[in-house]
């Protein structure tokens, strides 16, 4: 019994470990810094505050939000920014959904990198719209406000893309469903199935059942129907409205038609 209990406990512990890794895997990676300020535009506390904000928005939208600032670069700003995105492994889930603001203070370059659903929702027009609102703060020396607004505008753009006159036609955005959304349903269904199986096992422990019929004692071929009459009485008719087809232009959950998941653009400020 002790051996069985130990084995069962080990199995349950292993299963719990596995589930933690699966259910814990969606969402932003909090161990990666989402504010990398090599240009020293922010104080330590401002950087920490922005980091927390970016993580909470990322959790909400399932799109990673980050900012990287440097003093100088080599090569083009586009390539450098994309490399930063890959180097820090930003992005949520397999498609690495995310949006990153890159600032090169030395040349006054800015670049916004988008990936996955970030790229689908925040197109070039949206990038310009966002940056045009953020840039004045940076030009005034208030990097904190610039980056905070950047994150807020990205969040709003993702959650409510239809609110702008230059909207790209999407309806209200729904964060892609992750496995965590289904956790409670899976758990309840599993417990339900387990309850059914164990109930059947309990019932099989008692085989003494009353027999309320005498079918075993019918004389063979003795049953004869002497009269049979089916009388039609009345009929009832019910009707249910049919669902009309959904012809909204909702965003498909399949991958986008663009050839690549990466997008973005930038300029000078």
């Amino acid at each position, binding site marked *: 019994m002790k051996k069985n209990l130990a084995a069962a406990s080990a199995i349950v512990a292993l299963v719990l470990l596995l589930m933690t890794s699966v259910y814990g895997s969606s969402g932003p990676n909090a161990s990666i810094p989402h504010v990398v300020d090599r240009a020293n535009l922010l104080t330590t506390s401002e950087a920490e505050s922005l980091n927390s904000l970016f993580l909470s928005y990322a959790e909400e939208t399932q799109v990673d939000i980050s900012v990287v600032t440097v003093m100088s670069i080599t090569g083009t700003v586009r390539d450098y920014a994309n490399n930063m995105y890959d180097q820090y492994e930003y992005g949520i889930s397999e498609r690495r959904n995310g949006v990153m603001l890159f600032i090169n203070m030395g040349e006054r370059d800015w670049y916004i990198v988008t990936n996955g659903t970030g790229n689908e929702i925040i197109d070039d027009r949206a990038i310009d719209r966002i940056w045009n609102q953020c840039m004045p703060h940076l030009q005034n020396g208030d990097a904190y406000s610039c980056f905070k607004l950047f994150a807020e505008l990205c969040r709003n753009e993702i959650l409510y893309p239809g609110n702008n006159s230059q909207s790209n036609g999407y309806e209200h955005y729904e964060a892609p469903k992750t496995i965590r959304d289904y956790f409670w349903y899976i758990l309840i269904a599993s417990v339900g199935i387990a309850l059914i199986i164990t109930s059947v096992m309990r019932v099989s*422990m008692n085989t003494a059942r*009353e027999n309320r019929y005498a079918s075993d004692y019918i004389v063979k071929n003795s049953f004869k*129907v002497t009269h049979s009459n*089916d009388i039609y009485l009345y009929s009832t008719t019910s009707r249910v409205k*049919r669902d009309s087809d959904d012809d909204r232009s909702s965003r498909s959950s399949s991958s986008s038609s663009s050839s690549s998941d990466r997008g973005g653009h930038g300029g000078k400020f």
Partner: protein
Amino acid sequence: MAVVEYKCPSCGAALRFDSSRQKLFCDSCGNEFDVEAMNSYMEGDEKDSFDWPEEDNENEWLESELEELVAYSCPSCGGEIVTQATTAASSCPFCGNPAIYTKNISGMLKPDCIIPFKLNKKQATEAFEKFFSNKPLLPPMFKSQNTISEIKGIYVPFWLFGCSAKANATFRGTTSRSWSDKNYRYTETRHYALKRSGNISFEDVPVDASKQADDAYMQAIEPYRYVDIKEFKTSYLSGYFADRYDEDVEECQPKANERITRSTIQQLASTCSGYSGVTEESSSVQLQQAQTRYALLPVWMLSVKYNGEDFHYAMNGQTGKFVGKLPIDNARYLMFLIGLSAAFTAIATFVASLLI
């Protein structure tokens, strides 16, 4: 002339004859009914009748037979057993009480027939052990620590009822069809009254005649194969005990009536094919040519003490069918529940992670 009141088969309200429609009409639900159909529907059934013969046991003991037998009575549970004088009874087969005493055998009904034991004590023990296997909720201590009282082979008294039954029944059945247009999906359900009458015969429906023997257990070990039934002889009792009957035939008739009626109606219902939702609305059964006989049927009985509680088991002494109630270890039950839940959650998570 008595006025017949027609009740609506759909809602139960009173119907009136609508001269414009020339049909019976229900103001409450709006349904209309053909007059002839309603007359057929309302044709009454006869009442139930169960004419069992009065107990008339002409089977008398021979003096020599009575001398071969001895009866015992248990002051603890009230059980009474009979056995051959050469078979000593050391304890009550029902409760295990060793302080049983002999009593006068007179007044005991002589059985008409008996099915002798076909399975011996060793086979009964093996069947018991097989019953224990593959029962993961059974406390493991149960198998090792249990106290098995002596396995007892007991002839349990039964009244066997045979008869012809004539029955009438009315059932309700429905058929439905569906269709749809641009805006709606329609379902039409047609309701029918299904009248059936038939004849059927039963033979030797057993009802146990002993208060000691649990009815559920005795029914659960059915059926017996009557091809092995023999005329009663006292020699069949050698090595076994026969339980004395204490429920006479009148007390057992209602149980037989119930089983026969249920099976008869079930047979009539099975002829209502092509309809869904067939339910019984009314029925009547009349039994004729009824006969009864008093029989002894073989049962191996076991009782097991576990944690101060008695657990009883019965095995059909002819076919080997085994029934009983095993105790459940609650700790093992919980362990299984948690383990299975964890396993299914893991499987469902894996499948979901592939799909999402």
